[in-house]
């Protein structure tokens, strides 16, 4: 299986502090992956590098069938290439309606002039309605995003991610602040999404990771400490020492 995303030998330091240290990481085209690791292990920095927010000091990040280097692309280009990212704290545009938020995320030409020429069509309205229904916001499309509850904002953000139709989804702590029922719904959704695309989930909650039932990568001090099934990595003595250990 050729990898969709191939991170090889990447290092980055801030002010002398090595946040990522010779990290290598691959993910296939339709795969669900959980990334766990203690705070400061480099999970967020790893996402920053893949999405173009941070430039690594060394190493290579390649993407897609043609193994294009992501390092030469900016955030927007990377996003258009098909990498979507969900932030830890829900970041939706609170000033705008749910529909506007979704419409903005819909897959379409992002060029300013094309955006100027873009007109809502029955199919786009329908797509927004579908997505809203999918993330449980069917009755809320005309509300301002700022009026939604914390959980609803999380869902809206996931809806926006889906609207982007990415080939790789990077999800940072999706379950934070969610109720048990919401968590279950999220696991189901993530599993279903991973049938057609790659999904990388960064999560603290072991229980959540267990329910995802997927391959797990453990990061520690900026590099991969262990990789495999959850049972496999939780038996790893090093993992127990640095992360679980309790």
């Amino acid at each position, binding site marked *: 299986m050729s990898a969709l995303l191939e991170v090889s030998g990447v290092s980055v330091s801030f002010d002398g502090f090595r946040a990522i240290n010779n990290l290598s990481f691959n993910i296939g085209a339709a795969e669900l992956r959980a990334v766990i690791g203690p*705070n*400061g292990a480099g999970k967020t920095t790893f996402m920053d590098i893949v999405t173009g927010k941070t430039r690594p000091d060394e190493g290579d990040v390649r993407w897609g069938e043609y193994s294009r280097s992501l390092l030469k692309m900016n955030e927007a280009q990377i996003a258009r290439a098909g990498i979507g990212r969900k932030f830890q704290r829900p970041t939706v545009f609170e000033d705008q309606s749910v529909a506007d938020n979704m419409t903005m995320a819909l897959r379409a030409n992002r060029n300013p002039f094309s955006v100027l020429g873009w007109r809502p069509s029955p199919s786009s309205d329908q797509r927004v309605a579908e997505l809203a229904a999918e993330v449980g916001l069917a009755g809320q499309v005309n509300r301002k995003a700022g009026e939604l509850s914390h959980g609803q904002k999380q869902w809206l953000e996931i809806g926006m991610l889906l609207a982007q139709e990415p080939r790789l989804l990077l999800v940072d702590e999706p379950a934070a*602040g969610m109720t048990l029922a919401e968590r279950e719904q999220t696991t189901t959704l993530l599993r279903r999404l991973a049938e057609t695309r790659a999904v990388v989930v960064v999560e603290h*909650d072991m229980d959540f990771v267990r329910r995802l039932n997927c391959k797990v990568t453990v990061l520690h001090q900026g590099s991969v400490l262990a990789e495999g099934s959850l049972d496999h990595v*939780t038996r790893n003595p090093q993992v127990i020492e640095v992360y679980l250990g309790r």
Partner: protein
Amino acid sequence: MLNATNLTLHYGGSQILHGIDIAAHPGQVTCVMGNNGVGKTSLLNLLAGRHPRSGGEIEFDGRKLDRLTAQAMARMGVGYVPQGRAIFPMLTVRENLETGFACLPRSERRISDEIFDSFPVLAEMADRRGGDLSGGQQQQLAIARALITRPRLLLLDEPTEGIQPNIIAQIGRVIAALRDRGDMAIILVEQFFDFAWELGDGFLVLERGRAIMQGPKSDLRREDLHARLAGHATAAE
């Protein structure tokens, strides 16, 4: 020492805490436990005066407190070790410690040897910038910094998060020593079950902003508590 009753807290429109009671006594460690996002940190923030409560009463040293501000709480003797350490990254280790002098009369503004004895690594790194320290070192610095203010109540928010075991052990020893000194009340927010069980004298388990279990260690069984927190600690077994 501290006695808070029926605390409620809102962030914007959403209610984070629902009628929490919590008390802390000198020489005792009160552990607040629960999963991510249940309101542990918010509770601690409230007690530290960093976020106004929307309801409830707080009594400290027998005095009722109305509006809390962080600096007033600190000066009153509440030391705070936040989650994620919040070290001042551009200040040296020594300067980080010295920020706590604000709570002390001018004549007593010095870093006692006791601090460096408890955390020898800080003495070594005294002139390095806080931001250059490793996570474990920063955690030690955060605790030491809170101790500089000579608190009578110490609030610790997940001091073991992302820390190497040997340093966790050291932190545990420090907390135990502080508890055993007998003049300091400690509230510890913790997810690391064994660590908390080891140190705790009383426990409060939160779920979605409500207390679902509360009591002194003597009234609780380890298994019950563990079961309440299940799902989280299972991986460790």
